[in-house]
């Protein structure tokens, strides 16, 4: 199997064809990272998961060349790998603080950056407190690159269920934000 992967790559190189895996990395690595991040909520873990996902594709015979929709296929793998990692990891406390770093926009004042980080931390806490099915549907729905149909395939539910869960999750977040007097105004 591994030899097959190497042979495929060598053949593609010999024919001066773009390596399908390399093309996939260039086109979809960002999506894969975002999916991994949406589950793991840690930049380092998300990057490790991204590396692992593409390595798995390579080790399993570089089958991406024969896949009709590589984006959806990679998204499904990314989701599975990220969920597996989340299950095997038990360090959730430090993540909410780190997550804010990647969400802030550059070129703002320090006070605004701090305020935004604080808000993001609140949002992270609230999202992680959601029930698992609602959280998964909401998190995947926030990714623009993935259509609701693909989210439904990834979660193994119908599109209507995805929409319903996402809506319910938003409602819960809204109620909790109102109850907790968050976010604070500037």
């Amino acid at each position, binding site marked *: 199997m591994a030899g097959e992967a190497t042979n495929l790559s060598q053949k593609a190189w010999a024919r001066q064809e773009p390596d399908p895996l*390399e093309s996939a990395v260039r086109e979809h690595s960002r999506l894969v990272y975002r999916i991994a991040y949406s589950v793991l909520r840690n930049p380092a873990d998300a*990057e490790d998961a991204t590396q692992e996902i593409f390595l798995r594709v390579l*080790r399993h015979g570089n089958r991406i060349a024969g896949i009709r929709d590589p984006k959806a296929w990679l998204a499904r793998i990314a989701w599975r790998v990220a969920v597996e990692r989340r299950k095997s990891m038990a360090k959730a406390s430090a993540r909410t603080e780190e997550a804010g770093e990647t969400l802030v926009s550059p070129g703002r004042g320090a006070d605004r950056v701090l305020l935004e980080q604080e808000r993001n931390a609140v949002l992270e806490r609230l999202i992680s407190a959601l029930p698992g099915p609602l959280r998964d549907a909401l998190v995947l729905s926030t990714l623009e690159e993935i259509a609701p149909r693909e989210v439904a395939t990834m979660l193994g539910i119908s599109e209507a269920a995805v929409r319903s869960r996402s809506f319910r999750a938003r409602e819960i977040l809204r109620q909790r934000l*109102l109850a907790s007097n968050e976010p604070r105004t500037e």
Partner: protein
Amino acid sequence: MNEDMNMDPTDKEREREVDQWLESALSRYGKTEPRVGLENRVLANLQAERSRIAYRWRWWWWAGTATAMAVAMAIALWMGKSHERHPKSTMGASITGASTTTQGEQARALVQSGSGPRVAHPAGKINLAASRSVQELVVARRPKLEQFPSRRDLSERELLLVRRLNEQSDEEASLEPAAIPEEVDLSIDTLEIRPIQIPEIDISESKTN
């Protein structure tokens, strides 16, 4: 609708603010950017993995080839040795040190009891050739542990043959002194050829009768 109308304007303002913030926060939530150079890092990692796979593949190929060659050589050596050993074993040349099995004991019992081949004759008059061949047969029947398949026990026919050879050797030993021929004088005296004498017959006598 009634609730909205009855709500405090500050509460309405607060709700609107929360909704806006939630929408913007969630839209940003899914737009997380990785550290710069993620693609290059992934590609470099893939390249390293490919060379690792190729190296492993080559290593396994060489290991497999070397193992196959070693096995082939071992088989060739084993076959050569078995060819060398085969004629020796039929002549009953080698005896293994660990021949304390029932077969060896059986052969020894045969020799000692007299029903089997006798190694030493009491009178010392033994047909040595016959005795040796019998002894060789017994020795050859002892198990050779370094050989495969192991030797079997003497069959009934083989035991009868051993007994027969033993008896034969006894008979030959007992007949040996009598078999020496005595010297007899076979010389012939001079021959004398005499003419045949025919008596005359009296015819008158024969007529009266």
